[in-house]
């Protein structure tokens, strides 16, 4: 079920604060490190770059207009998968 509209979008407060600080300082190229993968991407984040933590490191995410409404976590994959050893053998044949 989707979230009730009356609650508004969920964003961790520190993400908002950091984004605002970067906006005011004018250095919009800086990577804003965040751990909050659960936060919604808001219209005021467009054009900023966030380093979204994936459990190991911060993945730089350039926020574009199309990303609004989705969560930061969607842009920072947490799993690395290189395929099975057997798959590679099968391909060589």
């Amino acid at each position: 079920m989707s979230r009730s509209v009356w609650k508004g979008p969920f964003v961790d407060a520190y993400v908002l604060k950091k984004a605002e600080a970067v906006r005011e300082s004018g250095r919009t190229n800086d990577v804003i490190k965040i751990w909050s993968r659960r936060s919604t991407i808001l219209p005021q984040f467009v054009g900023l770059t966030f380093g979204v933590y994936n459990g190991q490191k911060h993945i730089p995410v350039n926020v574009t207009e199309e990303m609004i409404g989705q969560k930061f976590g969607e842009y920072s994959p947490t799993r690395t998968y290189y395929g099975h050893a057997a798959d590679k053998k099968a391909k060589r044949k």
Partner: protein
Amino acid sequence: MARIAGVNIPTGKRVPIALTYITGIGPSKAKEIIEAVGVDGTRRVNELSDAEVLSIREYIDANLTVEGDLRRERQMNVKRLMDLGCYRGLRHRRNLPVRGQRTHTNARTRKGPAKAIAGKKK
């Protein structure tokens, strides 16, 4: 022969059934069209007058996306996700289930027929 929405030529069947042969029109959309145009659902396509066929064609053109247009639209939606680099896009690229289903077993619709793994027997 009745040509509706480009290449589709359903003939001797009842109108609502025949319309479902068009990509993007299922039973309920077919019913909607018939009601809007005012054709009886028990009649067959070859009993329709040219004017009725024309009005069906016009209704579809005006109100629905079907066939090639629909397919293109779907493809664009998928492509948008893939270009965005989001999780759903990655799943589309890999041809794996997009909506969080398990992949340990099943997921054969997306993954295709099971591939035998060499030397897996006990």
